[in-house]
């Protein structure tokens, strides 16, 4: 038996992404020299929405690209094979740019660690910042987000599901609590 609770609906997500866009503009004094990099998969549509918000605020669009970190995972040997998706960023979008990495959920920090490694293969950014829709805690690495849509304290037995229209047909965030019995199966 799983218990679900809705954490964010479409409006809440939209407002959070607009606030993040404002914070990015304020922090970086505009969008000049800025590249948004969405982490596959759900970070990609979120990065595109933040870019659209930046365009609406500043009337200037940042570069936007996607990054798949599948080739940089630190647990490849312990999990079944899974394919990698397309990476669209190029060296000229990274070298001497300010990068804002965008992902849906910040949890252990291992995905972000892999993304930092991947970015350094494209060039040397001036700075790298991190934007996430949800920060659920339980970091295993010294990594923190610069822009957070919503902080949600969770237990490790819970799962956070972020769904976006572009992939899932709906915008919502919910938490799923697994029974202890199920967890130990």
């Amino acid at each position: 038996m799983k218990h679900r609770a809705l954490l964010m609906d479409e409006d809440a997500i939209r407002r959070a992404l607009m606030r993040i866009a404002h914070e990015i503009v304020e922090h970086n004094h505009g969008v000049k020299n800025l590249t948004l990099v969405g982490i596959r998969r759900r970070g990609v549509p979120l990065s595109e929405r933040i870019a659209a918000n930046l365009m609406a605020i500043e009337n200037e669009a940042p570069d936007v690209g996607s990054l798949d970190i599948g080739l940089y995972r630190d647990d490849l040997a312990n999990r079944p094979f899974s394919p990698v998706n397309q990476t669209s960023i190029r060296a000229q979008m990274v070298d001497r740019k300010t990068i804002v990495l965008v992902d849906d959920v910040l949890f252990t920090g291992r995905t972000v660690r892999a993304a930092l490694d991947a970015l350094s293969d494209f060039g040397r950014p001036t700075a790298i910042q991190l934007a996430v829709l949800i920060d659920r805690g339980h970091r295993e690495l010294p990594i923190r987000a610069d822009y957070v849509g919503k902080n949600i304290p969770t237990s490790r037995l819970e799962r956070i599901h972020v769904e976006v229209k572009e992939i899932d047909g709906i915008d919502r965030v919910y938490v799923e609590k697994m029974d202890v019995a199920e967890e130990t199966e």
Partner: protein
Amino acid sequence: MQDLLDLESLSKQDIIGLLDLSQNMVEILDRPIKKVPTLRGKAIVNLFFEPSTRTRNSFELAAKYLSADVINVQKSGSSVEKGETLWDTARNLAEMAVDGVVVRHQVSGVPQQLADILDVPVINAGDGSHEHPTQGLLDALTITQAKGSLAGLKVAIIGDVLHSRVARSDIWVFLALGADVVVSGPPALLPQKYEEFGVEVTADLHRALTDADVIQVLRLQRERQSSKELPSLWEYHLRWGITSHSLSWAHPDAIVLHPGPQNRGVEIDSEIIESSRSRILPQVRNGVAVRMAVLFRLLGGGHDE
């Protein structure tokens, strides 16, 4: 997927999965640092019992771009020359803890036999006249990039089809992806039995090329020239050579592939190789991406469920 021995036994789903993966690997070749850490700590051995420049170097670079360590064993200068059997060579290498074996051999079926005795993945880099699976995949990838899809395309394979492992792998992958395949060449070198698989077999080049969207030109294996199966080079060029004249029979947007190395002026004219119709250099680039995808697929995960 444990090994890559042939394309005949792969499902359409497996083939599409490998091609998607290959397409996503192409981008790595454009990076300033062409090295991802994926296979760090893995060792791969290239066992090449037949001469090869392109395929061996392509496998070696693919492994290195994925951070694997690579060693090359060739026939000359190795214990094979001293009479050691292939099986003993392979077993000894396995004992040195290699994680994957890439093998090319003049005898069909050797990769399968190696896979039977080794616990690590075996990749066929060409065996006799059986198959050359990574070549079939890179041809399919090159066509997909140029045409969007293979479904409904007319693909003509021209040359010594009978002895060609490239033709065999090409036919399986092209048919799996929905293309219409026609083969043409000297009658003695055309296996009629391919008709059973839905392949059109004709010695008439004009018929084979009419409305073709893709032309795969096989290398004329000149070492077979003495066997009397082949006409003279001059006659071959006249009847089955790809020239601006014969190319005019194909679809106006038709592309030309060749697995290399080319005999310029025999099976294909220099001006075609250099023309905008040629996809021969993209084939070579895609070959590295395909081999990265295959190595990642076979060595880049824990145990398959």
